[in-house]
């Protein structure tokens, strides 16, 4: 079985403080801290692009778990904001930059906030079906490319980041169950219109607050696991308010629902691995439930154990 072995991440040093925009958007400190949960949104540098974020995440992985690039045989990038106009695919750009071998499979997955859970399922299944032994699943969706800095709905939330998850046979974390959902008829609630992100916050909130708890409950029932036997629930970090809402609607104790938005914001498909990176080597954490939700509208949940 292929499992998750390590996660590394890159959050660019550049940022915009939400506290500096209190006047522009009529914000209170209480709203920023308790509702958005985002002190600042990270911003990649002018010379950086999606692939560059991935390459930096890979460099950081090398410091944690050295991985000879020539031994990588599967490289997946989850993004909806690829380098240039998407040709060549960002995974091919990353492949070239890190010096992976020509026998390495490389492809992109186009998904937003549900992308990490989907990406895990795709990469694990692809690797197992084809006898591949060492895979890299990247997430990098720098929304700074499409966020309107004057749009209160999005400018205060979305930050840039990239993560990479190393998948290989000795990875201790194994995926046990996955569930997926799509509500394409409501996809306009979060869309890119002529290069500018638009979000109907109420529609996205209603979707998240209703669809995710149902899927989480279904996943637990299917796995025969009680919520109390899950160490952590790692929800997509959309905003502090949605994470708190999910915890409340699922009657989960706050200690089991971590939130790490403050220093970078909502990093789309990177938010769950960025959070899981904190716990992946923690021996006290043995079972986690992840749930990503957003663009599509799409949602996906999985149970990981070691």
């Amino acid at each position: 079985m292929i499992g998750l072995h390590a996660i590394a991440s890159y959050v660019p040093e550049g940022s915009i403080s939400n506290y500096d925009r209190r006047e522009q958007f009529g914000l209170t400190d209480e709203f920023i801290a308790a509702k958005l949960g985002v002190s600042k949104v990270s911003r990649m540098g002018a010379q950086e692009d999606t692939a560059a974020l991935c390459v930096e995440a890979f460099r950081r992985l090398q410091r944690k778990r050295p991985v000879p690039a020539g031994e990588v045989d599967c490289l997946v990038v989850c993004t909806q904001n690829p380098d240039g106009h998407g040709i060549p695919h960002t995974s091919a750009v990353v492949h070239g930059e890190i010096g992976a071998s020509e026998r390495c499979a490389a492809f992109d997955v186009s998904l937003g906030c549900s992308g990490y859970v989907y990406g895990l399922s795709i990469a694990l299944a692809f690797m197992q079906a084809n006898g591949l032994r060492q895979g890299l699943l990247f997430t990098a969706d720098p929304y700074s490319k499409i966020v309107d800095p004057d749009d209160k709905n999005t400018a205060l939330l979305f930050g840039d980041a990239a993560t990479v998850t190393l998948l290989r046979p000795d990875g201790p974390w194994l995926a046990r169950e996955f569930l997926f959902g799509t509500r394409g008829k409501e996809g306009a609630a979060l869309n890119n219109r002529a290069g500018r992100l638009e979000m109907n916050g109420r529609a996205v909130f209603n979707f998240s607050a209703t669809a995710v708890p149902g899927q989480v409950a279904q996943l637990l029932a299917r796995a025969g696991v009680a919520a109390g036997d899950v160490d952590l629930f790692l929800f997509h970090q959309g905003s502090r308010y949605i994470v708190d809402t999910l915890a409340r609607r699922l009657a989960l104790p706050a200690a089991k629902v971590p939130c790490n938005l403050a220093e970078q914001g909502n990093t789309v498909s990177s938010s769950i691995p960025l959070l899981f990176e904190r716990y992946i080597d923690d021996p006290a954490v043995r079972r986690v439930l992840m749930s990503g939700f957003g663009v599509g509208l799409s949602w996906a949940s999985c149970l990981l154990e070691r």
Partner: protein
Amino acid sequence: MNATEKTVAEIIEDVCSQVRVSEGDGDTPLKDLGVDSLDVAGIFLAFQEKLGVRVPDDEIDALNTVRLIAAYLDARR
């Protein structure tokens, strides 16, 4: 407050743990009660789930007091 206004007040307090709605707050703007823009989404979702009334996006801004919300809900139930 009439029965619907009391129900609205209870739902607001349930969704917004930091908000208290007292008997004389029927005409107080929700913002002055401490309800912010994110709370509004949660409150109107609760109306939809508990009372079966979905308020269209373009009508929400005008419903900014307990009394206005209650009257709106009564007219549609």
